[in-house]
C-alpha cells in the first residue's frame, strides 16, 4: 500500500506555479562545474544536516546523478523538499565563498533539486540495513519532517520505526504548510512514499490524546520521538475572533494545498509579518483576492520574515500596514467583515496605542498569523517532560528529554525553524537512540 496522494488540480498548478523552475540538464552541469569544490566547505557547515554539497555537485558534473542523490539523502532524507523550501540565502548559498569573489553563489538548491528530482522520478529504492532481531522499536509522534527524518535514519540502521500521525496525510508542514509555489503537496507525498518504501510504518488518523494512548505506545515501543510541531497558531485575543471569515494562516495554507479552498475574492487582511504570514498573504493574492493587507505592529525594519520573503510579497502585490494592530472583528450588514485597527508606537519595547488613530478595514477574510502555540500539555502533565518558553526541553546534541525514553526534535523543540532544522534534529535523535540501544544490548 502506498501512502495517500492528492489529485492533480490544474487551476492550483497554474496559480501556484513554481517560483524557481528546475535547471535543464545541461544548465545543471554548467552550474555544477562552477563549484570550486571547497575543502570542509562552508556550505556544508552552514547546512543544519551537513549535506556534502561539493560532493553531490561534483557528482552532477560527472554525470553520476544517482550517486549525487544518494550523497544528499545520506545526510538529509528530505533533500528533495529542502531543495525547494530551504531559505538557502541564509544557509548554504549564503555561505558560498563565491560571494567573496564578487560572483553569484553556486545555485545549490537548484542543483540539489536536479539530483533529487531525477532520483525520485526514477522511483529508486533506498537501501536499508537488514533489521536485527534485537532491533530497537521507536514510535515517532507527528508525521512531519522531524519524525520522518528520525524514522528514516532508524530504519536505514536496521531499527523499527513507526510514524504516528493524527491527520490523513503524512508530511506535516511539508504537505500542509509550505507555500505551494515552493513545494507542492504532491512532491511532499512523493518523498514520504520513498521513506515508506524504506520500511518505515505509518499510522494515520492516530491522535495521541489520552493517557491510555500513551501507555499503549509505551508498551509497544522502546522509545518515543516527539515531532509534534507547534500545533495551532496563537489567538489574536480580540472580540469577534471566532467568527466565520477568520482563518489562521496555517489553516488557509493547508486548505488550498489540499484543494479545499480554490478561490478568494475581495480584501484579505493578514495579521503578523513572519514567513508564514507572508506565505498566507501571497497565497491570498494568488487565489484571487484583489487587495491583501498585511498588518504588523512594528515597523518595516523589524519584520521577522526573511528579506527575500518580504521582497517576494511586495512583488506579489501585498500591501503592508506598519505599526497597526487589530482591536476587534465585526460583521457588516452584507455578510462581510469589518476589522477595527489602531495605530501603535513602540516605547521601550512596549506597544502603545496612539489615541484617535482608529481605522476600520472592510474585508472578506481575516488571517491571523502571529506565531504558533505549542501543543504539548499532555507530555508535560503525563510524563514529566519539561517545557520551557513553549519548547520541549531536550539535550541539543541528542534530542533526549528529561524522560529518558522520550526524544524530541523539530519545531516543538527548536521553537519553530525550517524543515532542514527539523531533519537535523530528527537524525541526531535517531543516532542517539541507536547508540543507547547498542550500548544496552552490548
Amino acid at each position, binding site marked *: 500500500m502506498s501512502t495517500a496522494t492528492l489529485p492533480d488540480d490544474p487551476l492550483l498548478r497554474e496559480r501556484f506555479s513554481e517560483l524557481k523552475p528546475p535547471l535543464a540538464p545541461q544548465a545543471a552541469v*554548467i552550474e555544477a562545474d562552477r563549484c570550486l569544490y571547497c575543502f570542509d566547505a562552508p556550505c556544508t*557547515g552552514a547546512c543544519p544536516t551537513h549535506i556534502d554539497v561539493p560532493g553531490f555537485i561534483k557528482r552532477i*558534473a560527472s554525470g553520476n546523478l544517482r550517486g549525487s542523490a544518494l550523497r544528499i539523502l545520506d545526510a538529509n532524507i528530505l533533500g528533495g523538499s529542502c531543495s525547494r523550501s530551504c531559505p538557502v540565502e*541564509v544557509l548554504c548559498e*549564503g555561505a558560498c565563498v563565491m560571494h*567573496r*569573489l564578487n560572483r553569484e553563489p553556486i545555485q545549490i538548491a537548484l542543483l540539489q533539486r536536479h539530483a533529487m528530482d531525477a532520483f525520485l522520478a526514477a522511483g529508486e529504492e533506498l537501501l536499508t540495513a537488514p533489521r536485527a532481531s534485537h532491533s530497537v522499536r521507536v514510535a515517532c509522534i507527528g508525521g512531519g519532517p522531524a519524525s520522518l527524518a528520525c524514522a528514516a535514519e532508524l530504519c536505514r540502521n536496521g531499527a523499527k520505526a513507526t510514524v504516528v500521525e493524527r491527520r490523513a496525510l503524512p508530511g506535516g508542514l511539508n504537505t500542509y504548510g509550505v507555500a505551494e509555489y515552493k513545494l507542492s503537496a504532491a512532491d511532499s507525498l512523493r518523498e514520504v512514499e520513498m521513506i515508506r518504501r524504506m520500511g518505515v510504518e505509518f499510522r494515520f488518523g492516530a491522535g495521541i490524546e489520552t493517557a491510555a494512548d500513551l501507555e499503549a505506545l509505551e508498551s509497544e515501543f522502546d522509545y518515543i520521538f516527539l515531532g509534534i510541531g507547534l500545533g495551532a497558531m496563537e489567538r489574536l485575543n480580540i472580540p469577534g475572533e471566532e467568527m466565520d471569515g477568520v482563518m489562521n494562516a496555517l489553516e488557509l495554507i493547508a486548505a488550498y494545498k489540499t484543494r479545499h479552498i480554490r478561490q478568494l475574492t475581495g480584501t484579505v487582511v493578514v495579521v503578523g509579518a513572519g514567513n508564514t504570514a507572508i506565505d498566507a498573504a501571497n497565497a491570498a493574492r494568488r487565489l484571487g483576492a484583489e487587495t491583501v493587507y498585511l498588518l504588523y505592529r512594528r515597523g518595516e525594519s523589524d519584520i521577522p520574515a526573511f528579506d527575500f520573503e518580504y521582497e517576494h510579497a511586495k512583488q506579489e502585490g501585498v500591501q503592508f500596514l506598519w505599526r497597526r494592530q487589530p482591536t476587534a472583528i465585526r460583521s457588516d450588514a452584507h455578510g462581510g467583515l469589518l476589522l477595527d485597527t489602531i495605530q501603535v508606537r513602540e516605547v521601550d519595547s512596549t506597544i502603545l496605542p496612539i489615541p484617535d488613530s482608529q481605522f476600520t478595514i472592510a474585508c472578506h477574510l481575516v488571517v491571523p498569523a502571529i506565531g504558533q502555540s505549542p501543543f504539548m500539555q499532555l507530555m508535560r502533565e503525563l510524563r514529566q517532560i519539561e517545557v520551557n518558553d513553549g519548547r520541549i526541553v531536550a539535550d541539543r*546534541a541528542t534530542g533526549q528529554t528529561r524522560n529518558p525514553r522520550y526524544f524530541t526534535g523539530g519545531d516543538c523543540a527548536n521553537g519553530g525553524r*525550517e524543515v532542514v532544522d527539523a531533519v537535523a534534529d530528527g537524525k541526531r535523535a535517531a543516532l542517539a537512540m541507536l547508540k543507547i540501544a547498542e550500548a544496552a544490548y552490548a
Partner: protein
Amino acid sequence: MPDIRVHGFAGRINAPNPFWLASAPPTNCAEQVMRAFDAGWGGAVWKTIGEPVVNVASRYSAADWNGQRIMGFNNIELISDRSVEANLRELAQVKKRYPYHAVIASLMVASNREAWHEIVARAEDAGADGLELNFGCPHGMSERGMGSAVGQVPEYTEMITAWVKEKARTPVLVKLTPNIADIRTVARAAKRGGADGLAAINTINSITGIDLDTLVPRPNVDGKTSHGGYCGPAVKPIALNMIQQVMSDSEAALPLSGIGGIATWRDAAEFILLGCGTVQVCTAVMHHGYRIVEDMSEGLDNWMRSKGFRTIEDFRGRSLPNVTEWKDLNLNYKIVARIDEKKCIGCDLCHIACWDGAHQCIHLDRVSGPVNGHVELHSTPAAIEARSRAAIAFTPVTRKEREAALSLQSTPLARIPRVDETECVGCNLCSLVCPVDECITMVRVDTGVAPETWDERTRGMDCAPEPQRS
C-alpha cells in the same frame, strides 16, 4: 609603433603579419582563403594538395573539459578531396588577388622522385610563395606510406626533402610530426636534406574518448573508429616543448612556423619567444571563425608596445636562453608560499592540495606550542571535516542570529590557511589551485647561500652522491 610584418621568412616569404592559417579545412578553397585574408590573416598554408582522397563521416571529435567545449580536437580527415588542378587553379586566383599575402602550398604525393618533382613544379607555376612538405599527417595517409610514415624516418625525410630541393625555386618547409621519440632527429634530417624552414608540430596520435553507452570511441564511423590527430589548446605545452628542443639544437634549428593549440596573441607571443618566425592556426578558427585574428593582431601589437619591441625579430627567441637542462638550475633558490589574508576567500583548496598532494605544510588550525616543523601537531583534513560535521548548525531566524550569519561575509580567520614556511618546499601547488588571483604568491627567501647547480655540486665526483636524508 610596432611593426608585425614578416620579412624574408625561410629566405623569401613575406607577409603582412605572422598569423597564418595552417593546412586544414579553413584553407580548403580560394573562397575561404580570400575571406580569411580579408579578415586579417597574413598567410595561408593550403589544405594539402595531392592525389584526391575519399573521406569518411564523421571525421572530428573533441575532448571537452569542465563545461568548456574543445579543450582538444581530433580529426581523421585526410588531405584535400579535390583535384590537384582545382586546388592549383584557385591558389593562382588567390595569389593574383592577394599578391602581398603568403600562400604556401602543402604537398603530399607518393614517395618517388618524379611525383615530387611534378607536384613541386605545378605548385610553383601556380604562384605558391613556398612549399610545405606534409610529413606529419598521422592517420590514413601514413597507412599508404605518406605523411608521418615519412616523417617518422629521418632517412626518408632527408631523401624526399632533397628531391624537392632539386626542383624547388621557392622556400621549402618541412612539417614535423610529434609522433616520434625525439623530434630533433627528423628536424636534423630535414636540415641535411636542404629544407629552408620547418613547421611544427603536426597533430598527435589520439583517441579522444569513448561513448559509454555504445562503447565505441569517437569519432564513430559506423560503429568503428580509427586513431586521429590531436590538436587544440590541450596540445600547446607539448608543441612549445618540441619547438624549444628543435630551436635549441644547432643541427636542427631552421626558420620555424609554430603550430599547436595557438588561439590568442598570448599563445602566438609564446611561440615566437621560443624562436618561431610565424605561427599557424587551425582549431581556434574551426571553433570560432576567421574573426579571431583581429584580437591576435591587436593584442600582439599592444603587448609589443608595452614591452618596447618594435619588430617580431626584437623578441623572437628571447625565451630560449631561459630554458636549460635540469642540472643547470640553481638548487639554492628558495621560495615559500605566502597567503594574502585579505584576498583569501576561505575555499581551503590550498590546504587539501598541500596535505594530499604535496608536503603537508598548509594548516587550518592555529596550534599552541611549537608552530613550525611537525605535521603531527596539526589536525588532519579528516579530523577537521569530522569536527565540522559534528557541529550543530541551524537556520538563523532571530535578528541576532541573522546578523551573526551576515558577519561571515568576510572570511573567518579559522578558514584562512597558514603556511609553515620552514616546511614549505616552494613547489607552487597551492598557488596553482588557488582560485583568487595573487592571493597566494611565492616569495623568495634569502638563504644566504650562493647559487649552485646540480652540475656544479657533482662536478669532479665519480658518481652522484647519495641523496641527503632530511
